[in-house]
C-alpha cells in the first residue's frame, strides 16, 4: 500500500500525533535506527486526492505544524509518496546518521524567516554597461548586508544561529530560534530600527531545514 510521508523525528520524542492525515487516513510512525517517520496510507484514486494541490499542501502544512509545536522535525516535501512502509524503513536506515545529526543540531529549535525587500533593489534597468550593473549589484548586496547586520543585532540572543541568502529583491534571513524564545525573537524584531524604505516580512515558526547541515 502506498504511503504519504510527512516528517522525521527522533524516535524517542513524545508526540501527540494528529488524528487524521491527508485523505482522512490515520497517521502512523515507522521506527528505524533511532528515527521515526510519520506516514499515512495513500490511495491515488481516493476521491479525497482530487483536492486541489494548493489545499492539500496547506493541509499538509497544518499537520507538520502540529508536529513542530511539539518537537524538532525534518519535513518531507509534499508530495512524497512511497511504495510501502518497507521503503520508508529502508530510507531511514540509509540516512540514519545524517538525520540524527541534523535533529541533534536543531533540537528544540524552530526556524524564523525574515524577508528583506525594497522596490529599489529590483534593479533600475538604466545601467548602461556590465560594469555599471555589477557596481549596482555590489552596492545592493552591501546595503542588504548592512541591514541584515542591524537585524542580527536587534535579534541578539533570541536566535542561536542565522544565515542569509541573497535574492533578486533583497534577502532571506533565516534564524534558528529556541521554541520557547519565539516571542522574544518577534519582540526584538519589532523594536528593530531599520530604513523606512525596506520591507521586512517575518514568518514562522517553520521546521529548521536551513540548519540541518553544518556549513
Amino acid at each position, binding site marked *: 500500500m*502506498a504511503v504519504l*510521508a510527512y516528517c*522525521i523525528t527522533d524516535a524517542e520524542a513524545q508526540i501527540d500525533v494528529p488524528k487524521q492525515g491527508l485523505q482522512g487516513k490515520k497517521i502512523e510512525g515507522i521506527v528505524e535506527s533511532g528515527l521515526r517517520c510519520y506516514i499515512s496510507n*495513500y490511495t*491515488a*484514486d481516493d476521491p479525497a*486526492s*482530487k483536492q*486541489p*494541490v*494548493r489545499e492539500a*499542501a*496547506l493541509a*499538509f*502544512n497544518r499537520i*507538520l*505544524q502540529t508536529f513542530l509545536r511539539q518537537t524538532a522535525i*525534518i*519535513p*518531507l*516535501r*509534499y*508530495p*512524497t*509518496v*512511497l*511504495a510501502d512502509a518497507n*521503503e520508508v524503513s529502508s*530510507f531511514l536506515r540509509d540516512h540514519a546518521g545524517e*538525520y540524527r545529526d541534523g535533529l541533534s543540531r536543531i533540537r528544540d529549535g524552530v526556524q524564523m*524567516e525574515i*524577508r528583506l*525587500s525594497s*522596490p529599489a533593489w*529590483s534593479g533600475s534597468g538604466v545601467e548602461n554597461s556590465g560594469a555599471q550593473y555589477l557596481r549596482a549589484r555590489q552596492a545592493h548586496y552591501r546595503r542588504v548586508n548592512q541591514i541584515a547586520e542591524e537585524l542580527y543585532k536587534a535579534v541578539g540572543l533570541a536566535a542561536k544561529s542565522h544565515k542569509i541568502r541573497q*535574492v*533578486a*529583491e533583497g534577502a532571506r534571513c533565516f534564524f534558528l530560534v529556541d521554541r520557547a524564545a519565539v516571542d522574544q525573537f*518577534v519582540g526584538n*524584531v*519589532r*523594536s*528593530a*530600527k*531599520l*530604513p*523606512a*524604505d*525596506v*520591507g*521586512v*516580512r*517575518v*514568518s*514562522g*515558526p*517553520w*521546521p529548521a*531545514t*536551513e540548519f540541518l547541515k553544518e556549513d
Partner: protein
Amino acid sequence: MSESSANIVFAGNDASDDLSILDVLDHVLNAGVVIRGTVIISLAGVDLIYLGLDVILTSVETALRHMKQAQGAAVHKPGTAV
C-alpha cells in the same frame, strides 16, 4: 537614512492571506527532504499532481514580483486587465 519599524509585517505560518499562502507553499514544496528515485508519481494521479504543481511551483520571489507588477498595473493604468 530615515528609520522606522512601520514596514515590519508579521505573517506567522498559517496561510491567513495570499502572501502567507505563498510562504507556506514555499516551505511545503521547496524545503525539506527529497527522496529521489522512490517517489511513485504515477500513483499520485497525473491530473492532480502534475497539473497542480505546474501551476504553483514557482519561487516566492517570482510570485511576489508578479503580484507587485499586477498591483502596479492596476494602480497606474486603470482599466488594464490584470
